């Protein structure tokens, strides 16, 4: 015998203002099988839930309908209430009369009518619902972290210190990411290397961390708690297990001088084919550039490097290697890359010698950088005047719409450092100064008081065509001229300078695209990984067991990145400490009798949960891995033989619901 209880929520005034709740209750009472129908101000409150618990016991209810808000919010609440009363929670269902009705329907009469139909639809479908059991699966306690910048490093150390084994995979030859390139950090002017490199060496030394540099994630299969990972490592032609980092091979390379642009120094410093990106690199092992090395490219080299290497670490036979391992959770920390300003032709990057990106200036300022910490023009002179142009590639519909968030502050920092090192007059050209952060505004004030100029206007263009050849002040000839509308002064200004620094914005790193494909993660239109909830689940993704941290999720500064990385580590710990996880039972299953083995469903499944398997009679049949299925329903709708069904969303249940909605 079906004994249904229906509960209509007022949600304060959210629902009751637009829907005549009493009328809906009366209507519910008239429906076949409904034993009790009630309304309450807040069904989700403790007394609201108690109503349900009491009624189940008192009236022997075996089906529960709650008409309230979205199941996203309170399905779990009411399922638990049913459980407390001893009822299988899958005999309950929610009607959403708030988001889908009260909030979007103007007319009270129409809204009430709509609510009645929603209630009738759900009453119809609960009659067909069956008891379901929640499955469980064990969680592998190891963790994969993709990206070895400050986000990946922070998360790795937090987890490793808690006893978790971490696989840290970094694409470039050293960990450290972009932060390793900075000279100092705002607003405290901490030396970036001084605070970062101890963490890098800790990663290397930590017994719980397996570090895979110069490596890329090839594929990841599986599901929360049970991911199978394949990582490929490129050959660096120097064996990490043997190399002592003595630099002898680099010194004795056939190329006596470094002549190739160094990636780490953003092209302004030079390196040899065999090189270590920077002195604090981890691992401190050289890498041989296969395209430039004389031996690797043409076999014409005496290979002095091999000769001088005492531990015999140079190995030209090294090949691409693949590693496979299992993890229970993944943190994606793929970071960012700087915007390429040659896309904006009016700023003269790549055209004029003394137009640099902010990251190139960071390398100049670094004491281990190509100029040993001096800010120098191409010809070796010190600049007398420097322009820093903000928002390059950011806040611009033609390039990136978003604010890159860190450029204001790093531009202010660069202004301070350039002035300090070179004594130059520094002009910052800004649209708005965004100094929102602890001690940021104070830092802005400090740099203002140091005499740095701030001109409010987005620079229109940089040119070297002088217009004031006869004047003796503000000489333009032989310099770069920054043309800007000073929007506060209401005048067009031409400001001659010796050096232009472009404060380039942040873009998702090149590796992010591959990771997005491998993990089937969703991204914002700009390419940043999407968090599950912008406020309440900022480091979770829509895929269970996969978390994000740092700039992979969007532009952010170092403190925020570290906070997010440690938050992601916390989420991972919370997950793996459980030991096992519950699996939502509303998943799809195959009726082997009906399945023709056509395979249509296999490529459609977004979670790779379906495979074709031979059955005992030698026939191909679809098989759904219950641990992988997320219950999206794609295969159910696609199956031409109607052989796939889904718990809680059977054809009969859905048709009953539709009938309840459309019947007059």
């Amino acid at each position, binding site marked *: 015998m079906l004994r249904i209880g229906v509960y209509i929520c007022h949600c304060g005034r959210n629902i009751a203002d637009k829907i005549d709740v009493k009328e809906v209750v009366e209507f519910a009472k008239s429906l076949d099988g409904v034993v009790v129908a009630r309304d309450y101000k807040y069904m989700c409150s403790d007394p609201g839930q108690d109503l349900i618990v009491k009624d189940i016991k008192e009236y022997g209810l075996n089906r529960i309908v709650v008409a309230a808000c979205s199941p996203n919010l309170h399905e779990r609440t009411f399922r638990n209430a049913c459980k407390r009363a001893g009822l299988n929670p899958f005999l309950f269902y929610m009607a959403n009369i708030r988001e889908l009705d009260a909030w979007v329907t103007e007319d009270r009469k129409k809204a009430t009518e709509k609510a009645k139909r929603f209630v009738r639809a759900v009453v119809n479908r609960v009659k067909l619902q069956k008891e379901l059991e929640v499955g469980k699966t064990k969680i592998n306690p190891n963790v994969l972290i993709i990206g070895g910048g400050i986000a990946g490093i922070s998360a790795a150390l937090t987890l490793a210190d808690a006893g978790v084994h971490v696989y840290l995979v970094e694409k470039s030859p050293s960990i450290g990411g972009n932060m390793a390139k900075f000279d100092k950090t705002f607003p405290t002017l901490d030396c970036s290397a001084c605070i970062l490199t101890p963490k890098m060496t800790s990663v290397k030394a930590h017994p719980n961390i397996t570090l895979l540099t110069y490596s890329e994630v090839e594929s990841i299969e599986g599901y929360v708690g049970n991911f199978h990972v394949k990582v490929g490592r490129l050959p660096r032609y120097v064996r990490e297990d043997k190399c002592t980092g003595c630099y002898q091979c680099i010194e004795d390379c056939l190329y006596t001088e470094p002549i190739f642009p160094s990636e780490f120094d953003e092209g302004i410093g030079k390196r040899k084919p065999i090189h270590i990106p920077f002195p604090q690199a981890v691992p401190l092992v050289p890498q041989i550039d296969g395209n430039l090395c004389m031996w690797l490219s043409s076999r014409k080299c005496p290979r002095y490097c091999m000769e001088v290497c005492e531990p015999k670490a140079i190995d030209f036979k090294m090949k691409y290697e693949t590693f496979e391992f299992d993890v229970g959770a993944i943190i994606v920390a793929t970071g960012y890359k700087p915007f390429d300003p040659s896309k904006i*032709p*009016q700023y003269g990057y790549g055209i004029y010698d003394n137009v640099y990106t902010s990251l190139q200036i960071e390398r100049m300022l670094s004491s281990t950088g190509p100029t040993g910490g001096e800010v120098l023009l191409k010809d070796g002179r010190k600049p007398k005047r420097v322009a820093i142009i903000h*928002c390059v590639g950011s*806040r*611009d*519909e*033609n390039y990136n719409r978003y604010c890159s968030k860190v450029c204001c502050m790093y531009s202010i920092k660069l202004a301070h450092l350039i002035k300090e090192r070179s004594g130059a007059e520094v002009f910052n050209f800004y*649209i*708005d100064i965004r100094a929102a952060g602890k001690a940021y505004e104070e830092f802005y004030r400090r740099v203002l008081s140091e005499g740095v100029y701030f001109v*409010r*206007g*987005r*620079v*229109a*263009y940089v*040119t*070297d*065509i002088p217009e004031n050849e006869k004047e003796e002040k503000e000489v333009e000839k032989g310099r770069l001229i920054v*043309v*800007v*509308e*000073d*929007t506060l002064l*209401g005048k*067009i200004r031409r400001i001659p300078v010796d050096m232009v620094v472009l404060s380039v914005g942040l873009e998702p790193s090149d590796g992010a695209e591959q990771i997005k494909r491998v993990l089937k993660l969703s991204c914002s239109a700009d390419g940043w990984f999407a968090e599950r909830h912008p406020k309440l689940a900022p480091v979770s993704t829509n895929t269970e067991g996969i978390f994000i941290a740092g700039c992979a999720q969007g532009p952010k500064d170092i403190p925020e990145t570290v906070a997010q990385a440690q938050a992601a580590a916390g989420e991972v710990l919370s997950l793996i400490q459980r030991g096992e996880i519950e699996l939502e039972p509303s998943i799809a299953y195959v009726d082997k009798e009906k399945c023709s083995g056509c395979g249509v469903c296999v490529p459609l499944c977004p979670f790779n949960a379906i495979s074709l398997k031979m059955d005992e009679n030698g026939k191909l049949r679809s098989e759904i891995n219950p641990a992988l299925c997320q219950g999206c329903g794609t295969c159910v709708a696609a199956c031409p033989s109607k052989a796939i069904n889904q718990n809680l969303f059977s054809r009969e249940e859905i048709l009953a619901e539709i009938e309840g909605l459309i019947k007059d």
Partner: protein
Amino acid sequence: MDVEEMLETYFERINEIPNSDKFIQCIQCGTCGGSCPYGMGTLFTPRRMILAVRAGIVDEVLQSGAQWLCTSCFTCSLRCPSQIPITDAVIPALRELSLLEGNPPEELAAALMNITRYGNSFRESPRKRDRWIKEVDFEVPLISKKKKAEYLFITECFGAYHRRCKEITKAFAKLMDLLGTDYAILGNEERCIGDLVRLCGEFGLFEDLAEKNIRVFEKYEFSKIVTHDAHAYNALLREYPRFGFKKEVVHHTQFLYNNLEKLKEMFGKLDYTVTYHDSCYVGRRNGIYEEPRAVIKAIPGVKFVEMKRIKENALCCGGGGGGVWLDSFIKDHIKERPAESRVKEAASVGADVLVTACTLDVPMFEDALKVTGLEGQLEVKDISEIILEAIENS
């Protein structure tokens, strides 16, 4: 009109123009003002125009005359981080108010009046529009006789009447003749295409011209339009489709590029150092940068040099957006006209010939040669003229 009415008229107009919803997304960054070739000479840069309109003081903008200090060069629009259609909406809508108020600069008012009356800005009889074909030694086919052609060649007013620009028309027609192109002209049935009219804010006249022109086009069978007039190209490509015109439009630089293999066979040698000026409505507005360069570089003997301000950053000749009719007005407001700065730049990179691809450029630059004293040192030629010269030199 009182200010209220002005604002109402203004917004009514800009709301008809694509992307004008971006108007209220102006972040007051000043990119437009700094990019404007007249930014130094005006009280109201586009940024301040937008600000003033939003503050309800549109009358002050009109009184300043700033709306007429625009060559429609499109630099501000291309660089605007909010993608506000400054050139197509913000300025022309202000100009429309100025026309309605009855105080546009005289020269310009006369030009618009002539276009209304005669279908051309030169106050010439429409019957004389194809007079140039009597000045050439080959037959130029009329579509009214031929009925059907692959290309309809639009000469536009400057190309038909202007003493100097007519030479470009002749040169391009000769090239089509030499290539054996199946083309024809409208002759006396052609009338102003009207891009400058639109940019000057005479929206009603522009619509009228477009509708009449399309009716004429519909009489004949042709598959494409070809024109050497950058503004005619722009209007036919971007504006006429709104009135139902759907045919392919080809700029003569594209046409020459598509026929480059055939042209190469005919080329003789030219001993010039050449630089190329990217006209606003060929380059910046419509993205044609490489085709004209490829054509020029293919001429044997030509040494090609680039100026500093090229492609997206090219400097305007000052003739667009009604600039040709505003010469004396503009002279009052700025120190040096853009065309003067441009020819100096061409000379500074060592060019003997400044090649352009827009009919307005040639008279603008030749005038600037006189002012700057560069006459004799630098020559100005349309791309079709230098191509023809290369052929005739073989």
